[in-house]
């Protein structure tokens, strides 16, 4: 995408014009950023030794997947694991345009971070990530996962 920046110190009415051919997720992300509605995931390190009591703002693009365990929601990134205060359902709605899709009752995965999607010998399908972790794509979510990928590609 071509980016043009124009500096005009006399123009106090700052504005952004977006020319697009297709309202795809990256355009929606841009709109969110301009409207200051870019989703932010607030979390704290899951490891209590690393938790200094301050909230950390996570960029959704850096998150591999979200895992809901024992009524707690965790975000897995390259830098570690963070506990989030949101619910999995609210994250699912908030992060739809950011590549996040539900693959089981307790997991949302970031399709931009998937390194490999592969079934193992017992036919369970796993999404692998750079951090070496893998998440099972549940059979019940196979159709919605496929629909999501098709939509993302069409909008792509």
């Amino acid at each position: 995408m071509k980016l043009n920046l124009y500096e005009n110190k006399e123009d106090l009415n700052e504005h952004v014009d977006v020319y697009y051919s297709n309202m795809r997720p990256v355009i929606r992300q841009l709109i969110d950023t301009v409207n200051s509605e870019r989703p932010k995931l607030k979390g704290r390190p899951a490891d209590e030794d690393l938790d200094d009591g301050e909230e950390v703002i996570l960029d959704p693009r850096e998150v591999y997947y979200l895992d809901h365990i024992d009524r707690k929601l965790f975000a897995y990134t390259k830098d570690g694991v963070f506990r989030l205060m949101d619910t999995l359902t609210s994250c699912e709605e908030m992060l739809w345009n950011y590549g996040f899709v539900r693959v089981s009752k307790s997991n949302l995965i970031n399709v931009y971070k998937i390194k490999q999607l592969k079934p193992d010998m017992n036919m369970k399908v796993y999404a692998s990530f750079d951090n070496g972790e893998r998440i099972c794509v549940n059979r019940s979510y196979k159709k919605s996962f496929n629909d999501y990928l098709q939509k993302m590609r069409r909008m792509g």
Partner: protein
Amino acid sequence: MREKIITFLIELGCVYTIVSVGGAIANMIVGGQTNNLNVIVMFMTCFIGTFVLNLHKLFDKVSPLLMIVVQYLAACALCAVMILIVGWIEGESVSPRGWYEFYRSFTIPYVILAGYYYYRVFSDTKKQEDLIKEIQENASEGK
């Protein structure tokens, strides 16, 4: 619940039609014949097969391979009960040859369909992986 029953009956109707027409074509080719009891047994077998395969939601947490095996064993057990009941109604015991023929004609399509399912899991996953790569490439080009 009502919707589930309707869906089940539609699936049963489709399965029975396919099996029945397939059986009729096979009979025309090899010159075989059927009778009323065979029709009932064929319908009951379709009912059991459709019912057992419809239970797949219960096996969501186990591997598909285990699901296929467990469903096959469950279907075999239910079919055995059905054959015993039919034999009791007819007042005849089922011969070993009868058992063998029944399970052979039940197992062969099951194994073929299971193999097809196995193939579909791998081919669908490959397609999904290609889609993911395409989405990732589009996203990196759009940046």
